[in-house]
């Protein structure tokens, strides 16, 4: 459903050109969860902004359902890393979630229903009339996720959404993402620098190189579903996959391909 072909982005001009992205190509299928990982400073956020239509790539194109993305498409929602800055502190949780619905052609009842349902999906019904800053970081990010869900996107882009929450909250939020993917039947592109997180969440992982960035490898994650924070992470395959992706990022070319290692211990 989403095709990224030969996307390149450079800044500046003349002798001072910085090539952030050299050439990125990959695609995402319907209802797939794909993580993009790479070393820090490799232009993950730049790539996400190009895909979201917030930034024009210097070359190449992004195609969503056959239509080239030139501006933020209606079928796409974005969750940013800085939850405390992407939510409006002057509005209640309800009005924050309502914001992107106000200009959609919906009845008042329909809007209310979407707001309440999406807040219920992230478990924040009780906090609907609170202000975002009255909530913890993890809860604020759940408000941002609820806002994205209420928008009813086909694809959800998430830019390191859990980078600034504590480890336990992060685990809960990861499971929330997997759950809403199934419940709402949406496709998710998840940018992260956390290799464990990418292996745990993904159907496939797009591993990027250092800048100027290209796709190093697209890794298919062969782990049983549904995933579980404890059971999945204690599987030997999890460790193997994780090590494989880790080596790719560290430029270690001696890593064995994961396909030779998966297949055992999957069905216990």
């Amino acid at each position, binding site marked *: 459903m989403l095709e990224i072909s030969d996307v390149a982005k450079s800044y500046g001009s003349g002798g001072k050109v910085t090539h952030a992205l050299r050439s990125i190509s990959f695609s995402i299928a319907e209802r797939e969860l794909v993580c993009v990982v790479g070393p820090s400073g490799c232009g993950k956020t730049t790539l996400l902004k190009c895909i979201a239509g*917030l930034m024009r790539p210097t070359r190449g194109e992004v195609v969503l359902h056959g239509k080239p993305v030139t501006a*933020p498409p209606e079928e796409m*929602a*974005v969750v940013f890393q800085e939850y405390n800055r*992407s939510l409006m502190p*002057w509005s209640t949780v309800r009005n924050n979630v309502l914001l*992107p619905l106000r200009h959609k052609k919906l009845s008042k009842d329909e809007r209310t229903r979407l707001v309440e349902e999406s807040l219920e999906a992230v478990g924040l019904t009780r906090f609907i009339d609170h202000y975002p800053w*009255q909530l913890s970081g993890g809860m604020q990010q759940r408000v941002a996720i609820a806002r994205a869900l209420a*928008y009813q996107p086909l694809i959800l882009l998430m830019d390191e959404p859990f980078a600034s929450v504590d480890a336990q909250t992060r685990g809960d939020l990861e499971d929330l993402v997997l759950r809403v993917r199934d419940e709402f039947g949406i496709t998710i592109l998840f940018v992260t620098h956390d290799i464990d997180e990418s292996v745990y969440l993904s159907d496939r992982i797009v591993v990027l190189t250092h800048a100027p960035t290209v796709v190093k490898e697209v890794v298919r994650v062969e782990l049983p579903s549904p995933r579980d924070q404890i059971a999945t992470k204690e599987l030997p395959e999890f460790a193997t996959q994780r090590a494989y992706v880790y080596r790719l990022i560290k430029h270690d070319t001696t890593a064995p391909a994961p396909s030779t290692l998966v297949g055992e211990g999957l069905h216990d």
Partner: protein
Amino acid sequence: MRGRSHETVKVAAEIVVPIAIVVVWELWARSADSQFWPPPSKIVQEFNDLWVFEQFRSDVVPSLMRILLGFGIGSAVGVAIGVPLGMSLWARKFAMPQIEYWRAMPPPALLPISVLLLHSIGNLQKVSFIAFFCIFPVLLNTIDGIRGLDPTLVDTARAYGIPAHERIRRIVLPAAFPQISAGMRISLSLAVIIMVVAEYFSSTSGVGYVLLISKNTFQLGPMWAAILLIGVIGYVLNLAYMLAERRMLAWHRGWRAATPQ
């Protein structure tokens, strides 16, 4: 209990200085017996005779109306011009030199031209004169507030395709409002100053006019009563504005307290 007595001491500290000043002034003025420095007790007497309620309708109400109208119109114009300027670099390039020039103009310098241009020394001239100078603090703060808008919030609005009018109403203006409001507070006290200037130099009514007439006729009691009233107007308006701001910006205090800046 300790907290409470601490509060009492704080309030007392705020009150004790003004009381001391008035007492010293009273004692000194009585012993000096100068016609230029009537004792506060006499000024309060004059204040009562003059303003409560002899000339309240004829002079205080017009002055207050001029302040509030001028302040309201000036603030609205400041925000209306400030929004496009805050959002567009090119608009700022064109407009900022003009703004800096007129902003630096001392109000009395423009008084003659305002009388000539508007063919009047009545309310129209007073209100537009006050409004003109109230524009600038609000305008500059609106521009600054909008330029300081968080880029993440801008990206959020774009990603969700929020149309321009919704963006301005629900994101840009609320985000800039703490700064706009700070500008409005400056404009409000400016409005009082300019009201006095305008009424003092060209008027047939108002507190500033009473100040002028009583000075010219050597009625120093009423003159001091007018000065006292102008101070009270400025103080009360500022206090009322601060209380209103506390309510309107409750979210801002909560947010600042909760967010490490």
